[in-house]
């Protein structure tokens, strides 16, 4: 078979002195080279050389975790670019937004992409969490990775929330005012936490610089590190979860029980379930090209989706922040509107008890629910109770968020979104 011209050029490049110095293995021609390509490349070695067919099935994972990761990468790239024009000062921030909109080439699209990718990341991290729950993938040995995932979900919310203030428009100012006041309802530490977050009593310059520092370095660094550990644990816990098969064992080598008078190879010390242990080799395929190709394709789809949104829909930018005139109604960012809806009934229950109990429940879940039946399948019959409880909580959260986002008009009164709200005149 004749190779296509592009491939020919590539193969010629690989054979040159420079090409050989960069790529340790060229385009793989054999199974041996396919494995070598994965193991010897810095970027690819994060993945195994062979993966289980079950893990590749799109209808199992829907690639939700990977999409979240890609959105995070898009957010870093667009975010760093936005930093070249943004000054975190109450005098300048809003003007910088206007510059991005009207003066900077592609500035508008860049900001739109950043905003939409942030919203999408909240959604996809949540969907990823739902997938893991409904397939029972948080069970042994993946309990701790679920806990890391809950942490990453909270980090995603914090990242989005801190970014919300930066445009310094009315939307930003009042969303953060309302959001930090919800946090202030926590007993004892609430008011202190608010003071610490804002660096004062009101949302002002101190709050802006704090949110900026958290948004551009502290939280992304923590999130990046935790994502690395999260991915590492996916590998070390045996790849994606899948149904138990006869012959599967979860190896738990207790290091203390091994004789200490000999040396060990890495494979002897590795703990937990590995994709190869007790497995039928027929279930395994080479990661190159099966996994790598799918990942690239998904990456292209995610970038295309965000680009599409960024080109055709503009991120909102309201008037300059004005502490005297709150908009009516003043709303927190949409993912906190379920909480705000609850807070409008009872501040203590909505602001403290419900979110606190939910986060605690998510954290202890894998340690309470220990039965391994039904792992690796969607909606297994064995997990009907757990799935029902989770679904009820999820539906309540979605309903409350929808009410808060769409059904609350001026004075937080009930208003159907299809009825046009009366025009609210600015000022008095």
């Amino acid at each position, binding site marked *: 078979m004749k190779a296509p011209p592009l491939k020919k050029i590539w193969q010629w490049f690989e054979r040159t002195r420079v090409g050989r110095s960069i790529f340790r293995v060229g385009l793989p021609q054999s199974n041996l080279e396919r494995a070598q390509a994965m193991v010897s490349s810095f970027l690819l070695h994060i993945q195994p050389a062979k993966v289980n067919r079950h893990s590749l099935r799109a209808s199992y994972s829907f690639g939700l975790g990977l999409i979240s990761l890609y959105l995070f990468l898009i957010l870093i790239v667009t975010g760093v670019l936005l930093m070249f024009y943004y000054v975190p000062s109450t005098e300048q921030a809003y003007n910088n937004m206007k510059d991005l909109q009207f003066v900077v080439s592609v500035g508008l699209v860049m900001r739109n992409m950043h905003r939409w990718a942030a919203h999408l990341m909240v959604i996809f991290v949540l969907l990823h969490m739902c997938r893991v729950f409904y397939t029972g993938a948080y069970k042994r040995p993946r309990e701790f990775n679920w806990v890391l995932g809950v942490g990453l979900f909270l980090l995603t919310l914090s990242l989005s929330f801190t970014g919300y203030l930066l445009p310094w428009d009315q939307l930003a100012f009042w969303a953060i005012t309302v959001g930090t006041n919800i946090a202030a309802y926590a007993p004892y530490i609430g008011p202190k936490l608010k003071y610490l977050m804002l660096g*004062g009593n009101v949302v*002002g310059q101190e709050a802006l610089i704090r949110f900026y520092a958290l948004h551009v370095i502290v939280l992304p660094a923590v999130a990046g590190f935790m994502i690395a550990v999260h991915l590492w644990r996916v590998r070390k816990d045996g790849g994606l979860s899948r149904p138990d098969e006869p012959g599967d064992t979860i190896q738990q080598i207790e290091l203390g029980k091994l004789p200490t008078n000999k040396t060990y190879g890495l494979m002897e010390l590795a703990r937990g379930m590995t994709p190869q242990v007790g497995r039928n080799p027929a279930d395994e395929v080479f990661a190159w090209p099966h996994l790598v190709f799918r990942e690239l394709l998904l990456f292209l789809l995610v970038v295309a989706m965000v680009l599409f949104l960024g080109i055709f829909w503009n991120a909102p930018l309201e008037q300059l922040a004005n502490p005297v005139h709150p908009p009516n109604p003043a709303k927190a960012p949409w993912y906190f509107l379920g909480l705000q809806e609850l807070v409008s009934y009872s501040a*203590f229950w909505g602001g403290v008890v419900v979110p606190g109990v939910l986060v605690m429940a998510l954290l202890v879940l894998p340690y309470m629910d220990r039965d391994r039946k039904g792992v690796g399948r969607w909606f297994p019959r064995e997990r009907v109770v757990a799935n029902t409880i989770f679904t009820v909580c999820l539906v309540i959260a979605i309903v409350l968020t929808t009410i808060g986002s769409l059904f609350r008009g001026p004075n937080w009164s009930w208003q159907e979104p299809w009825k046009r709200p009366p025009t609210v005149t600015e000022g008095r």
Partner: protein
Amino acid sequence: MPDTNHFPAESEVSRRGFLELTFGWLAGIFAVCASAVGTVRFLVPNVLFEPSLLFKAGKATDYPDGSVTFMEEERVFLVRQGNTFRCLSAICTHLGCTVDRADHGYHCPCHGSVFDDQGNVKSGPAPRPLEWFLVTLSKDSRLLVDKNQRVNPDKYLVL
């Protein structure tokens, strides 16, 4: 043959070992705690570059009898009835929006809390009444409002 009786057995901790362990761990824990306290304390601002909580509100004659004056910068209402003066916070106790003056009381535009003239909640999600601040007279006969000091609604400055 050397006498080994006064050497500690392997499982016992010698006096020196005990002291080293104790002080070593104490020093380590102290270092970690001190760093944590220092970091948190660093983040708590000592100077606030925001409107002062103690401010002069001008002369008493600036406010006509029966007036309720909104002060933008400080986000308070100055209330004069006869020769009495009071100061009411304009920050809603629900989620921190700025309330508006309504016909008989105050109204929060964010989530619809309604307060009466005394700042008490009439309806809406606000959990507490609006706060009243201490009003005194400064040496140069100006009204002096101290937002650090909350007072009961029946506390007036009488001139």
